[in-house]
């Protein structure tokens, strides 16, 4: 049994696959369809595709592309970026996408979260929160569409989002994004303490050991960006994903721990 999912997180910008560094400087890394085919062949647990400019630029999701992704994904697919209305969500689900990830619209009003959860079930709604650390190490809720922080405490916001019907939480450590410097384990621990629903941790993973540590800190699933698309010190683009046996070995202590408790 392998309960912890390891999820490649792909970022889209104007139809291209990019990778950011602390949410800035998107670097083009290739054709998304090609990347999805490779991840499909590698039998990844799940896939997450996030359009990083749709909300920022007030654009519609790129339906043509999403449909192509869905046709290639024989594993669960989560799409996020620019979803503001139920009609948009309907259209995306109808293409064969399992989950939608919502941030910008939810920060304004959690109504959309409830609406999607009522119609498609909570498991189909991921609330996405970006967390930025302050100079003094505090944590702030970050609004990726406008690149500023929100006044509301992120834990309070998460509680409200879960009450509204979100079935999973994606927590992205802004300062870790693209840095390959290890996940923000303290943040994962804090978030996990607040939640009874699955938590997906994103940001900073640079090794299999980092994935294990994130799981140990309480992540139900670990989303991975740079580590799965870059290779070597010069960050050459190379798409990789651990073998099933590697992940199995990685989590074996975790699972044994669970069974003996």
């Amino acid at each position: 049994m392998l309960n912890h999912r390891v999820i490649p997180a792909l970022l889209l910008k104007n139809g291209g696959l990019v990778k950011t560094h602390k949410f800035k400087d998107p670097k083009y890394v290739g054709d998304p369809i090609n990347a999805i085919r490779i991840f499909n062949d590698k039998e990844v647990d799940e896939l997450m595709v996030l359009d990083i400019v749709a909300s920022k630029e007030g654009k519609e999701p790129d339906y043509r592309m999403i449909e192509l992704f869905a046709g290639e994904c024989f594993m669960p697919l989560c799409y996020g970026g620019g979803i503001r209305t139920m009609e948009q969500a309907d259209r995306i689900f109808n293409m064969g996408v399992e989950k939608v990830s919502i941030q910008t619209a939810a920060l304004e009003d959690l109504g959309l979260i409830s609406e999607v959860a009522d119609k498609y079930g909570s498991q189909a709604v991921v609330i996405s929160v970006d967390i930025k650390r302050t100079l003094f190490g505090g944590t702030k809720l970050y609004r990726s569409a406008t690149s500023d922080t929100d006044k509301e405490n992120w834990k309070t916001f998460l509680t409200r989002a879960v009450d509204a019907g979100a079935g999973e939480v994606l927590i992205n450590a802004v300062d870790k994004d693209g840095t390959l410097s290890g996940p923000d384990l303290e943040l994962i621990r804090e978030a996990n303490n607040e939640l009874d629903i699955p938590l997906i941790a994103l940001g900073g993973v640079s090794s299999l050991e980092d994935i294990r540590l994130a799981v140990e800190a309480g992540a139900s699933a670990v989303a991975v960006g740079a580590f799965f698309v870059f290779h070597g010190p010069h960050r050459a683009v190379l798409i990789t994903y651990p073998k099933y046996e590697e992940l199995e070995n990685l989590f074996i202590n975790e699972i044994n721990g669970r069974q003996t408790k």
Partner: protein
Amino acid sequence: MDNQIKIVDIGIGNIASIQNMLKKIGYDSDRIVEPTLKSSNIDLLILPGVGSYDYAMNKLNDGGWSDYVKELSSDKKVKLMGICLGMQLLCDGSEEGELPGLSLIPGHFKKFSSNGGAERLKVPHMGWNTVHYNEKGTWMMEGHIDDPRYYFVHSYYYTHPESTYIAGTTGYGVDYGSAIQNGNVFGFQFHPEKSHRFGMNLLRNVLKQLC
């Protein structure tokens, strides 16, 4: 003649995913939006499902689907396959709702307990897990090279005082029936359409069952 594969389309499941995978393994399928098609035009009827029990049962009852599906299943040449919530709807009922199910496979659904000891069990059970097929499920596991694993998302699990209808089991806090069958009616708690080659292989085995 080509097999007639029909998928119930009443807005309670992800139909495109199922069609995508069937297409990948070489089969065309159609959505049906009205419960009128004669059984002679159907070899396999797929009942997908996500969402809540009563919401889905209401949809089935209101549209005349419940009677239609029961009627169809009495024609033993027609295979009826439920996926995820679709499998639950084929049984007698669930703790999640008040409404009785279609009662085509005996059994009830119970909620996973999230406080199972020191380790908190996250509910829903979401992610990949293995299925151990028993003798009843021999046809389902044909051609599997290694331990088949599938993608699961659910909060309620199959229970029945006897294991008569269980074809395969999965462990998540408890061991429960994740593949069940009663004659020409069967169901999978997981999503074969989202389970890579393991799901493809299972769907191929299902299609081999068609006359």
